């Protein structure tokens, strides 16, 4: 059973790698931020799977991440960034 | 290949990569990010050493893990201080690189 949970964790890890592509490509800041949010949720999922396989403390780490990923998103929105702006290097490929 | 070895190599590469960033990047914020990569690499390396030192029913060397926690807090304080200076510098000069300002003409 632990094996199965690890396989599931590996699969989530692969989806994280894929959504990393959106962080890399942008184009708008909001795209990068959203992809980061998905990565955050994915990380939480991995930690919960670890907690399910007996690593109890992983649930606390997941809870911490859940609380703090919200902070990052809020700081981003309120920081006065123009979200829809594309970053400079994307305009000139 | 064991888990400590994997992360040991990962940490070594992080340190080299971060050092490259610190030297090459001209903007201070990017230097700080690179410095944090080096810091994380050093802490991970320490963690690897701690994991290797598992024994007596413990899954790692608690002394190492305690010190790493201290190190992370110290590195954070350093980053926060640097960011604060950087923002203040930016307010004064509108710039955020370490390129020289024209020096003060008048001695005080």
């Amino acid at each position, binding site marked *: 059973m632990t094996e199965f949970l690890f396989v599931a964790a590996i699969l989530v890890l692969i989806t994280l790698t894929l959504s990393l592509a959106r962080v890399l490509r942008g184009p708008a800041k909001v795209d990068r931020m959203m992809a980061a949010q998905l990565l955050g949720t994915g990380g939480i999922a991995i930690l919960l799977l670890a907690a399910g396989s007996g690593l109890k403390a992983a649930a606390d780490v997941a809870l911490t991440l859940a609380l703090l990923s919200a902070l990052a998103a809020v700081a981003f929105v309120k920081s006065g960034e123009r979200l829809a702006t594309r970053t400079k290097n994307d305009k000139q490929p | 290949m064991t888990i400590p070895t994997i992360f040991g190599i990962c940490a070594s590469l992080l340190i080299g990569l971060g050092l490259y960033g610190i030297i090459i990047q001209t903007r*201070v914020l990017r230097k700080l990010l690179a410095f944090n990569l*080096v810091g994380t690499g050093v802490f991970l390396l*320490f963690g690897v050493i701690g994991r290797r030192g598992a024994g007596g029913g413990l899954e790692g060397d608690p002394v190492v893990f305690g010190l790493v926690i201290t190190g992370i807090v110290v590195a954070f304080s*350093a980053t926060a201080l640097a960011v604060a200076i950087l923002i203040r510098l930016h307010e*004064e000069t509108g710039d955020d690189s370490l390129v020289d300002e024209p020096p*003060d003409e008048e001695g005080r």
Partner: protein
Amino acid sequence: MFASLTDSGVLLVFALVLPVSGMLLALLTGGRHARTVTLLILLANVVVVGGIVGGIWQTGQAVNYHLGGWSPPLGIELRADGLSGAMMAVTALVSLAAGLYAPPSFRFPKSQENRESRMSFVFWYLLSATVAAMNLVFLAQDLFTLYVALELVAFAGVPMVALSGSANTLLAALRYLIFALIGSIFYLLGAVLLYGLHGTLDISLLAGLVEPGPSLWLILAFMTVGLAAKTALFPLHIWLPPAHAGAPPAASALLSALVVKASFFLVIRLWFDLVPGLPAPSASQVLGAMGAGAILFGGVLALRQARLKLLIAYSTIAQLGYLFLAFPLAFGMGVETDGALTGGMFQAMAHAFAKASMFMAAGLIAEAIGHDRIADLGGLGRVLPVTCLAFGIAALSLIGVPPTGGFVAKWLLLEAAAISGQWWWAVLLILGGFLAGGYMFRVIMPALARDVTPPTLIAPVSRFREAVVLALALAALALGLFPEAPTELLALGRPQSLEILSP
């Protein structure tokens, strides 16, 4: 098991607890009280350090203390040998002098009663912090505690650089912080690897465990380069001149006299205590070559500065170079010569007094005549005689003219060069003396000139502050007049290998 309160080891604890409580009290009381509290703490620190030095002197051995009763490798040990005692004494005196000199520079707002101003609060707070950090550097025996100490030193030094808040000083502070951070993280990397190899961070335990080999050389390289960057050793020096020249005079004095010595002291601990004599002689020659680069480069640039504070700052780079000559002179030919270490430490102490005096004198000059352009200092000796006298004595010590502390330092280094047959370092020492003479006389000769109209004073100079500056210069002189006691102190409580070799 029960250590009584009269044990001199307890004083080591108070050398840390006092300045830390000074920080807490300054934060708590704020305003005018911060100054009073800090000055009292600095005085008490002089007494405590005096007690520690007395303890080392009487027993002839290092004083140590196991915190919480836990002994290494699990716990942390504080240990004061002769080197620590001497450096702590210098720190206590210089910081007290800075505290006595500073008040007029950091006035309080007149309108409100006990409301504090930014600069005064920050300065007094950082002064206690500097003393705490320096004492910790000299006392800690644990490589990780020393890492925390290094960060404390940096976090106390950086805001001091930026105290005036101008764009130039902010830039200098930022640059300094980045060098300091990289330096300490590479120092930590070395410490971490040592733990991985030997399972302890205690210096004296490690000294019995380390074995020569590629791993050790890599570790030593990381730690030494990291610490050299923090000491502003050539070619990692670029951050220093703007940082030291831009701070208020009392802060510049602390930065140049004390803060850069912290990382130098750790290089000494590393090479002389952790791996005594293990590295190949060629490694110490590389350190010496960097020191030589600093002496020449710093000297030449000091010759070309137009402003007094910058000249003094570049002279710091050159004088720091001498410190690193101790390594090739001690280990360069495969034989350990004890005089080299003593010479290096003498240089550290004499430079601390002389440079603190010089920066504070420059501060008085700038306040009195409104600028510090070297070209317009002609005839200054007639209007500010005491300040110029202090500056002159300090300059003689930096040049290495007898009978100053700087002379003893350079003489001991020359002697070590002769004993170990390394004539090239002797040539460099003499050349460095000429350079220092050149840039110092650029200031002193015009100041003594009789045929020019002296600059007009725009503000009166406090006699008391002049006395403080002069006292520091006299301390540098005293080191040269009475060199026996400090020499003996430096040799106390040292590891066996070096004691045998001492004459």
